[in-house]
């Protein structure tokens, strides 16, 4: 579904990505992990068609990505909410822009799900950092695309909310599988959610190692099998540091 072919990118002298080769199959959930600044966000922006790579190319559904496409959603690392819109209106933005029809009840459902029931009419600046991130997550889920690119969606959340939302994501994925590329700094989260975990080397980013997570779903944190895979990923991360 997504194929990175020798994708490299340089920002005015800074080599962010150096030759990424990676294939993500349809309905596969791939987690990307790597040091801060190794080019994970850049990778997602390239896949979303927001950035043209300096070299190489990305195919989505067999077609080269040259511009953003409606079937691909990108959840940004920062919440990127419109300050003049209420929480609800922010969540409904993709429905308006993509002409998805009436989605109010679904938006309410999603907000309830992430624990923001009752905040629908607030403006973004009245929310805490983690709450803003959850609004952004709802917006991304409302778009309901075939391919989801998620950039550290749970970074500002506490462990419990994180677990709840991971479970929710697994449930959604079970009911209606999507292709997901998911950036995270949490190895446990990566192993919990993903079919494969890609470890990138530090800047310039390169695929260092890919670890399969051959475990049945639903998975739950704290299981021994998960810890084992986690340890493998950590080892792989440790190598790239040295």
């Amino acid at each position: 579904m997504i194929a990175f072919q020798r994708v490299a990118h340089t920002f005015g002298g800074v080599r962010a990505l150096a030759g990424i080769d990676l294939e993500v199959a349809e309905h596969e959930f791939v987690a990307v992990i790597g040091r801060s600044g190794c080019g994970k966000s850049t990778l997602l922006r390239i896949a979303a068609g927001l950035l043209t790579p300096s070299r190489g190319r990305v195919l989505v559904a067999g077609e080269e990505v040259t511009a953003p496409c409606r079937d691909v959603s990108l959840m940004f690392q920062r919440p990127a909410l419109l300050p003049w819109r209420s929480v609800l209106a922010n969540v409904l933005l993709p429905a308006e822009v993509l002409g998805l029809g009436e989605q109010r009840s679904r938006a309410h459902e999603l907000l309830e799900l992430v624990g923001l029931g009752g905040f629908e009419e607030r403006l973004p600046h009245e929310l805490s950092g983690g709450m803003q991130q959850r609004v952004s997550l709802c917006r991304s889920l409302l778009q309901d695309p075939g391919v989801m690119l998620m950039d550290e969606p749970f970074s500002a959340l506490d462990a419990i909310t994180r677990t709840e939302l991971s479970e929710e994501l697994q449930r959604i994925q079970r009911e209606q599988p999507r292709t997901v590329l998911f950036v995270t700094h949490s190895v446990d989260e990566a192993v919990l959610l993903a079919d494969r975990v890609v470890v990138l080397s530090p800047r310039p980013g390169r695929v260092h190692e890919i670890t399969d997570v051959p475990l049945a779903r639903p998975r739950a944190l704290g299981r021994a099998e998960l810890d084992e895979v986690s340890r493998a990923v950590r080892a792989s991360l440790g190598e790239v540091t040295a």
Partner: protein
Amino acid sequence: MKAVLPVLGLLAIVGAWWLATIVFRVDPFLLPSPGDVAGSFLELPGYLLEQTLVTSWEAVAGFALSVVIGVPIALLVVGSTVLERMFYPLLVALNAVPKIAVAPLVVVWFGFGIGSKVLMVVLVCIFPIVISTASGMRSTPNELVELFRSLAASRAHEFFKLRLWHALPQIFVGLKVSITLAVVGAVIGEFVGARAGLGYVISTSGASADTSLAFAAMALLAVVSVVLFYALVLLERKLVPWAEERRVV
């Protein structure tokens, strides 16, 4: 308290003016004292208020037209670098033409009626509106633009659901500059050819050496400006509440 301060400011200035006319013995034909001006107003209150309405209406009509024309121009300029490069310099050039010098042309084409005044107002108002709207839309944060891009949003959506909203606080700066210019523009239009309006009063009284009447008319102009300006401020408070607190998200 809120209402007291502007009144205090006004009193301070009027007081300073009065003192100046007394202490420096400024000749009344140059700068009449506030008392003379008030006297002139009280001689013809009904007539002067009528003229005030005429000028206000011209200014408001021209201002509204400027918004209706200026905002789309800004959209075009922001939307297309080619259009910007081609026509921005011309807009700048147009703005640099002293309006009073092209006035005969305007009167010949638009007559002595309200048309020529409204055109004058548009000529002075449009530039601040275009430039502030364009600059406001341009300054939209990259992360929000990328959000819209990632949704494969059309240009229209990007402009009307994002950039225009983001620009609103800056558009209001342009509008506030324009509204005071609008009043001046209407007056200049009236200088050139009119049978009514405060500009007409000023040019008539100037010729008949009635300096305090001219100042009374100018004081009324100032009042009109201040009222229109604060009407915009109120509108801004209504329309742009999120920016009032100056928060960032």
